[in-house]
């Protein structure tokens, strides 16, 4: 048989296609079973009722109190510092005005003496010493 005679024709190929088409595609039972189980599972998943939204847990008193204190601290700290400063200024002025504290009394005190003795460099800053 020469080469061109040995070549398959279009008709030969079509007959081979036909032979393959005639072969039944056998599906293994195990595969059918796996697919059927997938189908049932997916169907069951969808038919399950939507879970109700979980109620919010009640807020616990201690954490909320702690949070409130924490918030208040942010406000209280500067207010407290300001009040203390103003109180100190007012009390100092009042004490001076009422003769409770005078410059002479301050310079004659043990504190001024000890400071001047131990830190001579400070003497220049102490008026009248």
């Amino acid at each position, binding site marked *: 048989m020469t080469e061109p005679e040995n070549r398959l024709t279009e008709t030969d190929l079509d007959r081979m296609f036909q032979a393959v088409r005639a072969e039944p595609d056998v*599906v293994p039972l195990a595969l059918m079973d796996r*697919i059927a189980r997938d189908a049932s599972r997916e*169907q069951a998943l969808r038919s399950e009722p939507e879970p109700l939204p979980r109620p919010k847990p009640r807020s616990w008193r201690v954490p909320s109190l702690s949070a409130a204190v924490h918030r208040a601290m942010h406000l209280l700290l500067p207010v407290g510092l300001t009040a203390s400063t103003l109180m100190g200024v007012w009390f100092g002025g009042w004490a001076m005005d009422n003769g409770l504290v005078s410059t002479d009394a301050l310079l004659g005190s043990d504190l001024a003496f000890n400071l001047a003795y131990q830190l001579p460099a400070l003497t220049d800053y102490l008026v009248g010493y």
Partner: protein
Amino acid sequence: MKMAFDQTVSDPDAVLLARYAGGDRHASAELVQRLTPRILGLARRLLQDGAEAEDVTQEAMLRLWRIAPDWDPGRARVSTWLYRVASNLCIDRQRRKKPAELAEDWEVADPTPDVTHVMQGRTRVAALEDALAHLPLRQRQAVVLRHLDGLANPEIAEIMGISVEAVESLSARGKRTLTTLLSGRKEELGFADD
């Protein structure tokens, strides 16, 4: 909406899928009977591996079950959609398995001894399936869908995501390659006396 309704009427698989989505347990069994053999056949011919073909078939069917509640009948026929999913899964697996496959425009100049000496005594079916395994994947896909699954070129174009002309070209090249691959086996295949 009329188009979608018409599509559903002309596509019994879409009707079954809607019934399945509605909770009908028998609908899935019918769909499995109708669609699984075709999808498995396609996967076997594209992958040339029975176990992998079964995995692909199961995966494609699983995707069908999952899309059922959202199925839009106007989109495509169920079988077309399923062929496309299965084809893409096969291509993905094939590419992972054989990264350096033959180019799409590959043509056989001379049949190799491996191909010409394929198993003596095998039937035409086995010979054709062996030859199919040597086709580039896209040619194989076009030939299988056109000549073995008997789909029309426009449907194949939709499945493969290419033009009808490209399908025709791939299919024709695939057939030419098959003829070349099977050359020299005319007598063995029982065509010598024709």
